[in-house]
Every structure is written in structure tokens, then in C-alpha cells.
């Protein structure tokens, strides 16, 4: 399974990752912090990584080197 982690020291809870993930992997805490609750759906498209304005998302695609 792909592994998503959020660097909460850099994340500002803007909601971009949650709003635009094509398969709706994320839910958000009340302060906006994303939680990759449905990680098993992740296709590894990396769009959340590329669109995060705060460089806060790390994605490890299974079988891939860490990005």
C-alpha cells in the first residue's frame, strides 16, 4: 500500500490536498489538518504532493523509492 505522511510542522491546513485528491483519501481535522484516512484508495498519482503549497506531504508509493 502507498504511504502518505503529513509534516504537521509545515502544513497549514489549507485543505487543497483533501479537496482535489481524485479518490478522496483525506479527511480533515477541525483545524484543517489532513488525515489520510482512506490510504488504501491512493493511486500514487502524487497530485497532492505537487499541489501542497507547503511541501508538507510525503508519499511512498509501494514498490517505489521514497519520494
Amino acid at each position, binding site marked *: 500500500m502507498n504511504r502518505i505522511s503529513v509534516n504537521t510542522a509545515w502544513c497549514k491546513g*489549507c485543505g487543497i490536498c483533501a*479537496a482535489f485528491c481524485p479518490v478522496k483519501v483525506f479527511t480533515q481535522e477541525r483545524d484543517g489538518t489532513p488525515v489520510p484516512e482512506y490510504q488504501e484508495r491512493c493511486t500514487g498519482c502524487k497530485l497532492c504532493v505537487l499541489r501542497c503549497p507547503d511541501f508538507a506531504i510525503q508519499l511512498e508509493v509501494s514498490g517505489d523509492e521514497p519520494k
Partner: protein
Amino acid sequence: MPEMKYDDYLVKSRMPLFWCSGCGNGIVLGAILRAFAKLQLDRHNTVVVTGIGCWGKADDYINTNTFHGTHGRALGFATGIKLANPELKVIALMGDGDGATIGGNHLIHAARRNVDITAIVVNNFNYGMTGGQYSGTTLEETYTTTSQFGHIESAFDLCRLVEAAGAPYVARSHVLNVIQLEGFITEAIRKKGFSFVEALSPCPTHYGRHNGMKTAPKMMQWIKENAITLKEAEKKPQAEWENKFVIGKFTDKESVDYSTRYEAVMALAEASVSKGVSEREG
């Protein structure tokens, strides 16, 4: 040079970024750093030049040589840097206020001269840093701090402007289309001559808030819904797309850049001087 990854160009000690939550600047910054990595730019041979503004702070986070100039004058400094040392890769980062409003004259003349610089304008439709006043790209009838009853001016179409001024590379994308944006930035940096990329981007704090889009995703969705590709636009009558954001590559051609022409004219001048000297002495 060891292989550079995109985050090798990022000044991590300055993180987290100073920009507001959801500000699109960070997405454009990421696209630029990935383009740098794709091109394996030599940090010591690259100069990022900025003016002043929220986007103008981007140089704080970039690990190459940087030059933080004055508001509206990034291209003036960038031109000087390029002429002094044509070997350098020079990239100018400007907001729409910085690059296209107070600095609009520098923009058209740098394009006309075809100075070998890549200009990347983040267009968030207002002056973000100073509190959301209207700029030269604020859309007609929209609201800003200084147009509370609706803006009465029409907006510059920056790509068409720069294209008309003669730039050999001109493209526009938006931050949701970050892969396309990164591609345009990469091509622009590769291009010899004046290259221009406009990135439409959310400023949720000011422009968004004044126009019913308090969050970044809302403003990004709005940009997307009002965008049309250049290919689609070309097939339709102008009335159907003239109020939309046309996305795509407007120009990509070859044209001899300023430094090359300058070198050639200097060679002519030097030959003429030495001929004059030998005639006088002969």
C-alpha cells in the same frame, strides 16, 4: 555536480513558508524547484531575481544565487545581471502588481529587447502583501480593498501583452494544473531569449475573501471553472471565451537574444575601431 533533487534547491531552514494558508505561491515555488531539478541547474550559475511582494519573498526559500530588488524593478536588475554576465541563468519572479502594474514598462521592454531571462509572474489578481488593493490584472467588476463597489477597469491579458512585445516564449497555466505549469516553466528556462510564464494562483486572504472564495480550494476551483484551453478557444468565436482565462502556450519560437546581438555589434564596433587605428597608423 552530484545529482540535485528538487528539495536540494529549497532552503529548509527557513520553513515553514511565510505565506498564508492556501496561498498558491508555494505551489509555484514547488513547480520551479522541480523544473530546476529536471534541468539540473547549477546553483552557482543561476540567479533568481525578485521584486517586492508576497511572491517577491520566494527568493528567501531558493538555494541558488538570489537578488532581492525593489518593487517593480526585478526585470531591470535581471537585465543588468544578464548583460554583465551572459553565462548566468537568470530567472525573475514577480507578482502581478510587481511585474505587470508598477513594473509593466520593464516587462514590455525586456520582452521587446529579447533579453535572455525567464520571467515568472504569479497572478493572484491583486496586491497581496499590502492588503489586497487592485492591480493591473484585477478583473472588471470584482471586489478588492480599493474597489469595494466593483472594479471599473479592465484587466491586462499579460500573455497577449508580452507576446505582442515580441517575446519568443509565452505561456499561461494555473496552480491546480501544476504538472502543466512545471512543464511550461521548464521549457521557458530552456528557451534562449525572453520567456514568460504566468501562473494564475489563489490569494484566499484578500482577493478570495472579497469575492466569496475564502478558501484556497474555492479560488482554485473558480480559476479552473473559468479556464479554457487555447486549443478550445481557437475553435470558438471570441465572444465565448473573451472573459475566460485562456490556458496554454501562446508562442514558442526562435529569435536571436539581446546578448548575442550585443556581442555581434560589439565585434563590429571593435573591428571598425582597429581598422581606423591601422589606417591612421598605416
